[in-house]
């Protein structure tokens, strides 16, 4: 039987799925940067056509980006369903068949009994067929590690929720759903990266290559908090972008030529009156100016936190430790992100720059998340380290012996 455990092809496939997701995030970024999220008013159809049969001649203007985003999302959905089947092995077939039938049933139910939910009905039916097919194949393969299986099932659920959110954002004309859709996309990408990591040979050899070390300096907590700060920053960024108000503050590093911009009603009214952008975005509000200032301050905090992570890991683990190396790369990513943020403003929110800013943000979050995951594998609580070191000689050798004893 083919083994999913330590199967390099599974890890490569997971990585491929993660890269496809990053491409999908980039496409979604383009859609928002160009403010064409509503260019296809119906879902999951496109201007009344089945989305897979929508004539290419009609992929004009904003439709090109939004429609392509939906098609790539479908591909990612199929990839994730297949990943779930592969990761969880033959034992996943029955649950997949049951879920597929339930989704198919729910889809038909919506189509027949709730015409207002027609779009969701078509979506559920379609995904039900894909899930049913995934559960109905004959491939015999052993599942991956139990934790990885759980992650795969989580990805399976999240990709469908994401699809539904994307559709509902359009049919309900609701920007707040768009913010949630954007934030969840980042988490979903991190999840796929984690699956790729945890199914890799490198991960399998990690404990033997680097003996667990006591985390006497709170490195795990530092990495976790910094990663959470980045996620908070991404939510801020998504909130700003989905206001569709363009640049709430048109200059950098100052804000309306001041360190802190006036945010009273008269000033905000003046900012709006003075804006003569051909893209004619939504009016600026004082809240949006506040969000933009918070985003700038957060960027500074995150940069300091990431530099601290790089310094601390290098100081306490050594420059050759993977945590130290990847923390240094993290600093580079955040620096690039800050530069991209500035250029986004200086270029009057050019779509390609703004989208690259989104993509690098996703990579920064994933980098931090994976660093945190690795830190929890190679660093142990000081209390546990003490217990380990005081174990009597007659007891079996504890885990966490120096690397020299590993095969």
């Amino acid at each position, binding site marked *: 039987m083919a083994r999913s455990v330590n199967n390099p092809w599974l890890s490569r496939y997971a990585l491929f799925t993660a890269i496809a997701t990053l491409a999908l995030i980039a496409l979604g970024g383009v859609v928002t940067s160009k403010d064409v999220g509503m260019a296809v008013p119906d879902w999951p159809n496109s201007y009344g056509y089945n989305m897979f049969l929508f004539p290419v001649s009609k992929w004009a203007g904003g439709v090109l980006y939004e429609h392509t985003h939906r098609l790539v999302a479908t591909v990612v959905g199929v990839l994730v369903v297949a990943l779930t089947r592969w990761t969880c092995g033959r034992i996943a077939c029955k649950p997949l068949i049951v879920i597929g039938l339930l989704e198919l049933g729910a889809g038909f139910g919506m189509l027949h009994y709730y015409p207002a939910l027609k779009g969701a009905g078509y979506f559920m039916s379609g995904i039900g067929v894909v899930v049913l097919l995934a559960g109905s194949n004959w491939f015999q393969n052993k599942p991956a590690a139990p934790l990885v299986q759980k992650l795969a099932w989580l990805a399976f659920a999240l990709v469908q929720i994401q699809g539904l959110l994307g559709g509902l954002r359009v049919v309900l*004309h609701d920007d707040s759903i768009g913010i949630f859709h954007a934030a969840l996309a980042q988490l979903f990408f991190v999840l796929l990266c984690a699956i790729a990591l945890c199914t890799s040979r490198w991960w399998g050899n990690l404990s033997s290559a680097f003996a667990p070390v006591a985390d006497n300096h709170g490195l795990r907590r530092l990495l976790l908090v910094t990663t959470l700060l980045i996620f908070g920053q991404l939510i801020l960024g998504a909130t700003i972008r989905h206001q569709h108000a363009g640049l709430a503050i048109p200059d950098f590093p100052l804000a*309306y030529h001041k360190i802190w911009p006036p945010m009273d009603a008269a000033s905000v009214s003046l900012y709006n009156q003075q804006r*003569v952008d*051909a893209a004619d975005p939504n009016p600026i509000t004082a809240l949006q100016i506040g969000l933009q200032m918070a985003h700038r301050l957060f960027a500074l905090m995150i940069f300091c936190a990431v530099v601290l992570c790089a310094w601390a890991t290098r100081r306490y683990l050594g420059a050759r430790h993977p945590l130290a190396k990847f923390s240094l790369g993290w600093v580079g990513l955040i620096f690039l992100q800050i530069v991209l943020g500035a250029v986004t403003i200086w270029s009057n929110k050019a779509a390609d720059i703004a989208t690259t800013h989104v993509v690098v943000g996703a990579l920064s979050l994933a980098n931090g998340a994976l660093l945190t995951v690795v830190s929890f594998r190679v660093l142990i609580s000081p209390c546990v380290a003490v217990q380990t070191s005081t174990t009597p000689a007659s007891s079996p050798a504890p885990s966490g012996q120096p690397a020299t004893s590993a095969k």
Partner: protein
Amino acid sequence: MKINPRFFIIPALVAGLQAATAADITGTITLSGTPPEAQVIDMSSQPACASLHTEPLKTQFYVTGPNHELKDVVVYLKNVTGKSTGPSAPPLLLDQKGCEYIPYVSAVQTGQKILVRNSDPAAVPLHNVDVTPTAEGNKPINKAQMTGASDIEISFPTAENFVRFKCDVHPWMFSYVTVVDSPYFSMSAKDGTFKISNVPPGKYTVEALHRKAGKVDKEIEVKDTNVKLDFTLEVPAGK
């Protein structure tokens, strides 16, 4: 039972008297200050749209005449509400032609029909009509409109300034419709002139409202003769 025609004499007399004493408010709107230059709209990504114009399209934030007359100003009686005759008023036509909305700025009454039409040729295969009002009671709309499709009918029950109509397929396409709760409004033409007709006698606040030049209010009293009322709006002070 036969109705005595004499019962209608007094109401008819009153209506006639009111019509006889109603007056028009006319005037001219001018702009003070130097407005920013109109920007050329980049249609290079959509050659089908670009080919419909002999000259490049430009933004229309400030449309002025040779003597600083200002177009696209909504002039209306601010303190008159609940007098809408919108449902019986002729519909406003918003036409998508040459990948632009015509007119760019307009005004209607609450309940008055707006017909959104796609007059573009088949080379421009589709538009979507994305309307995002903010006043409570006015619902957002997003509808597909292919070439040759029937008109989309919209109306708004709540007064609101500059409701935005947008095409997400062609991101430069906008139109702004101000919804007023009475029939007493007008739009300034390219020569800056406006006319609010048949205003009953009384004291009013007249507001002249422009998307970028802001607003100016003036108090007037209408008696039985036409009233001349000019406005000067200002380009907002520089940064």
